[in-house]
């Protein structure tokens, strides 16, 4: 998918979820239909990425911590925004167009991240609800510097990376338990970004930018929300994202997240 089409898809997903009229789950008491919540969330994912026009692959491993503000307009419709910090590990990228080729194995580069999400319930069937969710996350461009010490002249490297992720799709929740709400989601899940490396060794200079794209576009997420009181809830989920390996064969990437939500 081209870079220009991705924002379009994102807009359709967010608008699609937002414009669906939420199903009336139960009578809402006046004054209780809008809640503001805040949450603290952590997430880890490992995602196979391809680069150099799909010729090579490696992993993007990211650990994310966010603070999130959430507006629950009705019991069935929530919109949120979040901001936080991510450690993103692009180990395995190889830059062969620099004067001296570089095998990047320097680990995490930290940086800020923000995003927004929408969640709605569309239908209620017995103890099950069927809804939709969409999220956009952007890890802002961040920079790290490294030294080249293996040559007879000292060199410097400046790495800049950024990535974006959009995901969205239907969610089925089971509401038959008192405290737990297990859910299953099959979601479109797209990741893309860039990693740029600039090299300077005395008078040798070069810059190479890699456009990276996540393999796989549909992920399966299972998880549960634990809500022991009206003031607090805990959400945990794991995601499996199957993809086709370069050269054939199937493999799966994984991710997991935990979110603690406090109501105001």
């Amino acid at each position: 998918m081209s870079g220009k089409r991705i924002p379009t898809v994102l807009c359709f997903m967010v608008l699609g979820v937002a414009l669906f009229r939420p199903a009336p789950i139960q009578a809402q008491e006046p004054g209780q239909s809008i809640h503001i919540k805040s949450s603290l969330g952590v997430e880890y994912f490992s995602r196979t990425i391809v680069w150099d026009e799909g010729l090579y692959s490696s992993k993007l491993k990211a650990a994310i911590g966010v603070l999130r503000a959430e507006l629950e307009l009705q019991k069935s419709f929530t919109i949120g925004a979040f901001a936080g910090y991510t450690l993103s590990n692009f180990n395995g990228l190889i830059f062969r167009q620099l004067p001296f080729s570089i095998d990047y194995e320097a680990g995490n580069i930290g940086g800020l991240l923000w995003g927004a999400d929408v969640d709605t319930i569309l239908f209620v069937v017995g103890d099950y609800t069927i809804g939709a969710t969409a999220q956009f996350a952007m890890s802002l461009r961040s920079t790290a510097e490294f030294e080249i010490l293996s040559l007879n002249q000292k060199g410097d490297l400046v790495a800049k990376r950024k990535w974006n992720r959009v995901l969205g799709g239907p969610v089925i929740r089971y509401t038959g338990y008192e405290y737990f709400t297990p859910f299953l989601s099959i979601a479109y899940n797209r990741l893309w970004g860039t990693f740029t490396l600039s090299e300077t060794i005395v008078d040798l200079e070069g810059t190479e930018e890699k456009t990276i794209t996540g393999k796989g576009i549909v992920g399966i997420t299972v998880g549960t929300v634990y809500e022991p009181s009206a003031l607090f809830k805990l959400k945990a989920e794991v995601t499996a994202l199957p993809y086709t390996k370069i050269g054939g064969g199937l493999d799966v990437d994984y991710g997991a997240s935990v979110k603690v939500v406090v109501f105001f």
Partner: protein
Amino acid sequence: MRKHHWALSLALAGCLAVFIGFVAGGIPRLEEETDYVPGQVLLKFRSWVPVWRRVAALSNVRSRAVSRITRLDVFVVQIPDEAKVEDMVTAFNRNPDIEYAEPNHIFRAAVTPNDIYFKYQYALFNKGQDIDWVPGGPQGKPSADIKAPSAWEETTGKEDVIIGILDTGVDLTHEDLKNKILPGYDFVNDDPDPTDDHYHGTMVAGVVGAETNNGKGIAGIAWKGKILPVKVLNDYGEGRASDIAAGISWAVEHGAKILNLSFAAPSENITLGTALKDAFENKDVFIAAAAGNDNTAVYYPAAYEKYVCAVAATDYNDERAVYSNFGYEIDCAAPGEKILTTIPSYLTTPLAPFPYGYGWGTSMASAHVAGLAALIKSIKPSLKPGQIMNIIRYSADDVNASVYKGKDEFLGYGRINMEKALVPLKITN
């Protein structure tokens, strides 16, 4: 709970178990290409540990022995698919019943060509072997070489990189060269037959780009690069500046991106200098030249320091060859002492029937640099010749650092290192 939905509950429990595994770092999934066999660990129990405890130690972590190296009493253990080898090794090594556990590492052969005389080419790979096929000859110092096999893992060149050999011509029928040679020209006799009537050009051509991995003779540095023979030296190994300048221009016009000039003279020549400048600045041609073999100041054309990579010679111990010319113009060094290479077929005799022999001098050293430049050009075609020169300079090993640290007038930046010049440098934190 209002209802029991067992299937959903089980799915949820499984999901939570996996999640807890993630958070706790329990059994993370193997995700990267590794340098060991995925899913396997080598393990040795202490000798007194009874069988039942061995079995329990493995089954407790859902592992099993798949084979045993009887003499060493070492087991090859299969670990759970989802487990990470490093974590399992750590866990096993905490068990007091286990003497040691380690990954089942994969050992890979570096690219070693099958050319039968490759073992004598210490310049490419020196493990301290005999470097003379006559018994009693010298042995090299291990690693006093240009690290060719590991560099060949990155590239063996490309056919569209043309290397101009301006010399006495090349033996066009040589078994190890004939498939590598493009139609050239003879500027000495002004005809299109650049056959070598000396021997020097054939020797240089073999170092740069002898046909490699063909089960014959020697290995060239640029396996796939094409050789453009341009005869500018006569059968005495001498040439006129006018022929050399014309040969340079002709080679450039015929697509050469690398030139090797393994000849030298103490006098500057404006015409020759102009031809080199034009090739370097206007045609992006990399030029390697021999510094000279008279243990004196660097000769021309190597002394044109702006356009030419001036190459000194080292030996099989990584020491400067005593005859190698010196001066601030020296950019780097390469092996030049006792270099096994191709010789013209007509020089073979019943007593010496193989068209291979040893060469000495900065001519051989320059040919190594030209071959390396051809490999760099093949994987980074957009680089300018000055950039290629700097890559060769900065990646060199400062082998005389104990005496002259940094760039010096004897070996320049040092003896070239193909591995550092070509293989991606690993950047870690």
